[in-house]
């Protein structure tokens, strides 16, 4: 079963390559946009730290490393899951989801992963580069333990972030359109480009528990800076397992509301 899904996933990648080679100029433009977007995320950091050396315990280099984590996570989301999440609403409206549900494949997997947005690879690579530069220029000493902890939290964080956005897209089974909701979730997730300690308490709660972008930015960076231990890693893994189970339940529950042919 796992091998079948892996084969299908590889096929989604092949389709994406075929699509992007058809619109080569657009691919290049989107790659340039990815570079511009990364610069625009770093720009406020550069401006902020031209007025002060530290904000809420974060130095410039650490904040730039955090931007790198953020861009990598958003890049991975847009590369693998955002296309599917966006299309779900119109598929439900048009009744096109029928063709997904009758396939001998896990429909939740198919809906989430079917649209690979290849130009976002650029975002992922740039994000990793920015994170590496930020860490190298900071006073952070990366040990094996802190690296493993950081990666474990970051991977869990990416699962959590994608689960939150996909979970939001399943609301499309119950309402007419959710385009605005998708935008809103993206904008809330976008707040993660700054350390959550920059925000008031209520916003920190939202960025940790509701749209858990803190788990791809602030929490892994805290692990890298040596501020968190294995207890945080275990809690994050447990929270991720819980959210994945909830997402599975939410999907099954939502599909029951699907009445086919333009519901």
């Amino acid at each position, binding site marked *: 079963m796992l091998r079948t899904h892996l084969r299908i996933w590889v096929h989604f990648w092949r389709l994406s390559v075929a699509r992007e080679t058809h619109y080569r100029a657009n691919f290049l433009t989107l790659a340039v946009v990815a570079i511009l977007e990364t610069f*625009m995320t770093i720009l406020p950091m550069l401006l902020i730290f031209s007025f002060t050396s530290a904000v809420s315990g974060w130095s410039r280099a650490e904040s730039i490393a955090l931007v790198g984590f953020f861009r990598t996570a958003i890049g991975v989301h847009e590369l693998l899951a955002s296309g599917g999440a966006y299309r779900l609403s119109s598929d439900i409206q048009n009744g096109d989801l029928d063709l997904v549900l009758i396939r001998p494949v896990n429909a939740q997997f198919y809906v989430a992963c079917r649209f690979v947005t290849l130009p976002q690879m650029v975002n992922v690579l740039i994000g990793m580069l920015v994170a590496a530069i930020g860490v190298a220029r900071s006073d952070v000493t990366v040990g094996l333990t802190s690296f493993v902890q950081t990666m474990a939290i970051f991977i869990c964080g990416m699962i959590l972030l994608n689960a939150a956005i996909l979970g939001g897209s399943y609301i499309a089974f119950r309402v007419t359109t959710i385009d605005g909701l998708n935008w809103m979730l993206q904008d809330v997730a976008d707040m993660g480009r*700054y350390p959550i300690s920059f925000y008031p308490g209520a916003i920190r709660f939202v960025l940790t528990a509701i749209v858990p972008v803190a788990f791809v930015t602030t929490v892994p960076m805290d692990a890298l800076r040596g501020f968190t231990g294995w207890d945080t890693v275990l809690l994050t893994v447990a929270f991720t397992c819980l959210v994945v189970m909830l997402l599975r339940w939410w999907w099954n529950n939502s599909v029951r509301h699907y009445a086919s042919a333009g519901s």
Partner: protein
Amino acid sequence: MTPASQLRVLRRLTSIELVGSLMYRTQFAVYMVSTVVSIMVGLFIWLRVGESGGDLPVDREFIVTYYLMLAVVRTLVSTWHSEFLAQVIRKGELNAWLARPGSYILNLLANNFSEKIVKMSTILPMLGVIWWFYRDQFALPTEISRWLLFIPALVGAFVLEFCLTTTIGSLGFWMDENSGIARSRHVIAMALSGELVPLALYPAWATTFLDIQVFRFTMSFPLEVLLTDLSSQQLVAGFVLQFAWLVAIVMVCRFTWQRGLHAYSGIGA
């Protein structure tokens, strides 16, 4: 068509679009939450920088008023039809409009006006809630002259923004896909219009470039007119530059649209 009959068509189209927009009130409310969220990020961040001992060239009062008014200005000025227009061109849906006496541009304008009415009615209560938390630091000018100058700056900003968006949308006459260009414009405009960071917070060496570039006049300039003590010389220079950009962009927009119509095959793509 005479200007009077064009206005009549525009008014009628706006009424029709308004009815359509009102059907999606919840959708617009969610969009507006999104707008408020993206703008309030700047407010929270710069207030935090100030609290952390950052030596900012502006005070807390300016930051609060700037970002709250930015949400209003952005709602009134921003346009979004470039990809939509390109799609209409690609699919050959422009045909029906070419047979009508009014231009399709009128329909785009009507769509903009109607959505602005709905968006303003949803965003103002949200901003009211934020205003309540920061009401002690929110200070709008009381001088009538500033408000009188703010209005033409705002109208100029809207026309500039509308023509820029229409020009990019018109690329659909020649290109299969313009979303990359539209997104590039959006990202660059975010930084240079004062939406991401107030232009007053940029370093001094960038001031000359920031003062003359087009995106300043699509967002920042109306806010500068309203909230900062611009000298009469700076005001005149600002309005002259905005007008010059306006003339240039309107001409480019008109040229692109007319050349595009000549190139349009009407069968879709």
